[in-house]
């Protein structure tokens, strides 16, 4: 058992979710941007998933493979390390974020460079690698367009797959004009903006000697890393620089090379709503004259083996970071990713962040409550993570206010005895009587209530106990 990692990580919520969410809701521009964007991806995904007749079987198989991986993590880590080493890679093990950051920093320094190019990677976001490198005097340049936008803005990503989903193009043009060297266009046409970013990045690629990436999958059998992307920036980073450093969460392992087939069908349809992603790169060790001459793989635990030991929570480790759950989540759609206070937002973030850090870290214990348990996330998850079940599990194992505990215990005590329950119903009924009279013109509904029920009446009328409970009606009409 590793202790929970540091509280400073970008997966620790600094603000309770309800407060952060209420703030985000006031940004009407953000809500419009997010609503449009999530609806577009949601519809695209639904259309391409509907084309696959054996989608449910694919999900089942993928879930089973991932469960097997979680069962055999230590064994597969060893197998991967042996295979990758045999293919010419150097494999390192990092127990937590600090160890991983130290390892990568040291490897970069050993190459004598002060700049690295990066392929979008959630694992490096999770450990705050860019910040750690900056502290060591190394600039990490994000090469994924959306990550570049977020980086130029000194912002944090708000979506796993579409990190700049909270920007509209006018804002991006303004940002490029301010922060991108050599940018001069006065158009906010997406093609023009992408073209400018391409020029800027191309110069960076050609001069970079070290690249840092993550991996969507790591094959234990062959020691291969698989990187799935859309823009070709990943392919550049994986092939041009002479040193490649990959930071890979241990849950990314797959046992066999042939397991990739199902996952490469599931991932693009679930994430971007495409039948196939434009670039899939598979890197197995080093090959003389082709690609990097040095390949380092840092296998990151950072709480994963601890999660694997939780019989309910461990299913979160199946996640392939497609973000389909974000795009269908009614909560995410309205508040955006920043409200979750973690690089893992949305439903998957609400079960991943508190598990990675422990629920006592920052305000991560508020995240499992950031859901109505509507189940839309579970329906779209390509690896069938029952997110609502894990949210409930985390609520049940996490901290709760003493007053709420007492109220729930009292309520259950009252409800599990027939006489106490009937007495409570009668008390509610007679207590409600004057209110029913007073609220007659509102149809017998309460428009304003004192705290804590004011949270209810702030947005909707409250019902009052009926003049006659069902059981009293039943007694009057049926128990004669």
């Amino acid at each position, binding site marked *: 058992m590793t202790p929970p990692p540091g509280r400073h990580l970008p997966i620790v919520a600094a603000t309770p979710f309800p407060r952060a969410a209420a703030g985000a809701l006031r940004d009407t521009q953000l809500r419009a941007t997010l609503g449009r964007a999530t609806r577009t991806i949601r519809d695209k995904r639904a259309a391409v998933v509907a084309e696959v007749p054996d989608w449910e079987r694919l999900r089942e198989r993928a879930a089973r493979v991932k469960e097997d991986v979680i069962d055999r993590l230590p064994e597969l880590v060893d197998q991967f390390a042996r295979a990758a080493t045999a293919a010419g890679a150097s494999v390192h093990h990092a127990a937590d974020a600090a160890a991983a950051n130290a390892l990568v920093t040291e490897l970069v320094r050993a190459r004598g460079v002060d700049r690295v190019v990066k392929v979008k990677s959630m694992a490096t976001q999770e450990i705050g690698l860019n910040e750690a490198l900056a502290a060591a005097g190394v600039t990490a340049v994000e090469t994924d367009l959306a990550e570049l936008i977020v980086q130029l803005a000194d912002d944090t990503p708000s979506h796993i797959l579409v990190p700049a989903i909270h920007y509209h193009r006018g804002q991006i043009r303004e940002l490029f004009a301010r922060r991108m060297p050599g940018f001069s266009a006065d158009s906010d046409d997406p093609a023009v903006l992408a073209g400018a970013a391409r020029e800027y990045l191309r110069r960076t690629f050609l001069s970079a000697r070290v690249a840092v990436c993550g991996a969507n999958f790591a094959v234990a059998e062959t020691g291969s890393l698989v990187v799935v992307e859309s823009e070709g920036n990943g392919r550049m980073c994986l092939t041009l620089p002479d040193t490649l450093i990959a930071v890979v969460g241990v849950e990314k392992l797959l046992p066999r090379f042939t397991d990739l087939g199902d996952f490469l069908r599931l991932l693009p349809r679930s994430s971007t709503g495409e039948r196939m992603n434009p670039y899939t790169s598979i890197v197995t060790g080093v090959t003389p004259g082709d690609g990097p001459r040095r390949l380092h793989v840092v296998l990151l635990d950072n709480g994963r083996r601890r999660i694997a030991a939780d019989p309910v929570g461990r299913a979160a480790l199946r996640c392939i970071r497609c973000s389909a759950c974000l795009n269908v989540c009614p909560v995410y759609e309205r508040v955006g990713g920043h409200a979750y206070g973690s690089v893992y937002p949305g439903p998957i973030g609400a079960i991943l962040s508190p598990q990675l850090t422990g629920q006592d870290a920052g305000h991560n214990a508020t995240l499992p409550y950031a859901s109505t348990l509507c*189940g839309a996330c579970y329906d779209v998850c390509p690896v069938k993570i029952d997110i609502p079940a894990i949210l409930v599990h985390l609520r049940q194992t996490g901290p709760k206010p003493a007053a709420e505990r007492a109220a729930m215990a009292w309520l259950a005590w009252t409800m599990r005895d027939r006489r106490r329950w009937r007495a409570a119903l009668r008390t509610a009924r007679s207590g409600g009587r004057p209110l029913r009279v007073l609220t007659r013109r509102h149809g017998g509904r309460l428009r304003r209530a004192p705290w804590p029920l004011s949270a209810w009446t702030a947005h909707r009328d409250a019902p009052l106990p*009926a003049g006659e409970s069902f059981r009293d009606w039943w007694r009057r009409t049926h128990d004669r």
Partner: protein
Amino acid sequence: MRIALFVTCLNDAFFPRVGIATVTLLERLGHTVTFPAGQSCCGQLHANTGHRAPARDLERHTEAAFAGHDVVVSPSGSCVAHLRAHTRLPVHELSELLVDVLRVTDVGARFPYRVTYHPTCHGLRMLRLGDRPLRLLAAVRDLELLPLPEPEQCCGFGGTFALKNAAVSGAMLADKCAHAVATGADYLAAADSSCLAHIGGGLARRPDAPRPVHYAEILAATGPGATG
């Protein structure tokens, strides 16, 4: 058939008309309804708010209250989903009982109004009720069914979510209400009184809004008027 009713604590205290409608409907179809008086709450509220121990007490309590009953019905999708996951009770949501067990879609109801139907999340995604409630409503005489835009979107209730994340819940409710008003329906029907209390509470603050109604009330009706 002898059918035991799990009315739910919420209906018992706040919406007895939903229980009365369920009884009226089943008796009209020639069945015998019983009401095991030991029942109260299924424990869903406690469980979903994170209080496992009291939830377990209530699950066992409910199981004991219905011991020996072969067919249990409840007019609440979320309570049925909870009982199905945590007890061995042979419990059916009302539309499941009618369509799958009793094999009836035309229950002889008449409801001369325009109605839109919101498929609640538990009914939609946990019980997979599918079009059962809609088929039942479609067979009601003089009822005009109007489609609700984005029906599968959650209304924002979510039990204590409505209190703990009141602002987000309110934003989701506002969108659901806007969709409901846009239909021009007289009534918004659903399969769960809890969601209906939330949506109805929001609709009550809007002009020209549909009124909330449990679909059991519609199926029990045999003429003008919300309840049979």
